[in-house]
């Protein structure tokens, strides 16, 4: 267990997270990072598949509430994540493994920190149960 390094897939909305940062240099600090035009584009299927492929956690970073460039994509995904928590639970996957954060961080400095803190949470849970 001690050498378990959780794999966190991180989706982040381009309109709120890291748009002022140099993507290449930020990429080197964040493993499995997928910048996406809107958090509302993150499909439930993507989240399930991440786990299927061996991810131990999925972090979704969206715009602050009420600030979505596409009106309410962040809200749609927030709903999606809540529903998904129940589905994942039935597969024996802890809800803590899918997390959504709605905030604004143009420099993207918090992204590596958030991924790290999520890793810590997931480390405690251990590797994901394969579905």
């Amino acid at each position, binding site marked *: 267990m001690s050498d378990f390094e959780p794999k966190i897939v991180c989706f982040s909305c381009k309109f709120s997270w890291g748009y002022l940062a140099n993507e290449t240099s930020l990429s080197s600090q964040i493993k499995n990072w997928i910048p996406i035009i809107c958090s509302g584009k993150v499909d439930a299927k993507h989240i399930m598949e991440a786990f299927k492929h061996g991810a131990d956690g999925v972090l979704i970073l969206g715009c602050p509430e009420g600030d979505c460039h596409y009106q309410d994509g962040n809200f*749609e995904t927030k709903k999606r994540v809540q529903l998904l928590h129940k589905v994942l639970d039935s597969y024996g996957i802890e809800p803590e493994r899918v997390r959504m954060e709605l905030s604004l961080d143009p420099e993207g400095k918090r992204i590596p920190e958030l991924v790290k803190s999520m890793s810590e949470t997931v480390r405690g849970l251990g590797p994901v149960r394969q579905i």
Partner: protein
Amino acid sequence: MWKTTRDSGAHVEDAVKQMLPPCQIKCPINEDIQRTNVLISLLPEDIESAKAGIIQIGDYLYEKNPFFNICGYICGICELECNYKTKGGAIRRRLLKRFLSDYYTDYLSRKKKTETIKDREDVAIMGGGPGGLMCAYILSQRGYRTTIFEASNRLGGALWLIPEYRLPRDVLQNTLDSLIRIVGIDVQYGAKVGEDGFTLEQLKAKGYKAVFVAKGTPYPRVLTFGREQVEGQDLSGVMYGLDLLYEVSHGNIGPDYFKNKRVIVIGGGNVAFDAARTARRLGGEVTVVALECEDKSSQDGLPADEEEIRAAWEEGLRIICSRGVRKIIGEGGQFRKIDCPRCTSVFDEDGFNPQFDCTDCVEIEGDILIITIGQAADKAFLQREGLLDERGRLAVDSFTLQSLLNPSVFIGGDVRRIGFMVEAMKEGIEAAESIHRYLRGLHMRWGRKRDYEALGLPQRTSYKQPTDVVWIPPEKRMHFQLFERGLTLKEAIEEARRCLTCGPCLSCKACISIGFEKSLYAVAVDEERCSGCGACVYACNYDAARLVERDGKLVSETDMFRCKSCGMCVAACPSEARALVDDATYDRIETTFSLLS
């Protein structure tokens, strides 16, 4: 700041019908409002790092509108049609441009000249106001050698009549100087009509192949009642608002010019309010007398902008509505009072035709009378040059602005129809296009007619209030310094973020130019898979996903004019019937996942 690419610029396509955001349609020159709002919203919060981005946004706006920084002080027509109007208030686009101007105007004097080779014909432009300048700006960039013949000793025309508390002189001067320097326009000052070498015939003889007449309306309209000119306009103490504003702008009038004077201003338009608020700042106790009624929503309502009227009230001006002027009464050659019958209606079906009830008159006493009821063109010049028809009206094609009597002459701006600055600019643009077509032997009309359709309010769960406009309190603004505070960077970002980006992506493409997206992906629908459930219709906030019946089956389709390629419908589709075509995001997801195991 951003690595913008040239080919991803927004452009208004030549099309019979085009969808645009309502603000862009309302703007006479169809400025790319949404695009630059998005870019402002993505500026860094630290002003030093933001400056490069501001210059970039400014440069982009400048291409289409070399007066955008001035618009930031005095325009704002676009705000009248903002979809947000019904949800708390329009996006404060004017102040957003003023914000850009606060940083861009200085840079303008350092902005590089364009390197257009001018190997096309010589074109003369009579009048250096916004219409003439705009025409010269465009033609110069298209390789024509342009010369502006300006009667006075400065460019800008009527823009100089806008009081300094609304438009600072240095901003205006810098904008004008930069404009002619950047695109290389020749200017001849003091070129007065009728003087040697300055008739249309002589310009032609000098080799100018086309002329744009944009001489504006240099004369004040005299006061009439019924069909008769009201007597007494030559009394001492009676003046025209236009002359007052002109003298003030030249610095010929001292700060206490109207001290302890009762000043009456006749007129209800923006220029009248400019004159009235100027008179107030010169120490006068000011009363505005207007034909129109207070209710701005009525056809007969005050034509001045609401903000002008509010500011006037705040500054202690008395506004008397629904009164005309029948007599100007003097005593010993000095103005004393006016006799004002009640105006019962201003417009009828034929247009301006005021009616009065002369049994209901009031007399208003004063020391100074300022008449500001409109401006007039130099009819004698137009007559002499053979540009009027037999009924004394301008003979001009209102679409191409080409004279109907002299094909190498084009006429536009206030001289043709009095309007806002940006309307004169629009005429300058149209005249430039017409002159280009005329000189190249192209069809004068083909492909020019545009028909725009506005997109509606996107659906949203919450709406935000606009940023407050901050005016200096009235008791502290009795001077000619700007009375409105500009937005801070933080406020500008917040305000730009409010923009609902309701227009179609095709006319914006901000996300592409800054590298967020590679292109505007089409949403394909696999009709075999589609069950017609309508989940996509629910998910789409832009009314782009719709259900249609095809061969007896309900399937969804995408209206690409409305679609934002956000992918929400794709995520919402339970049967994987929807997909974004050529979207590399999905490849990145796949690659990332494949590297997990």
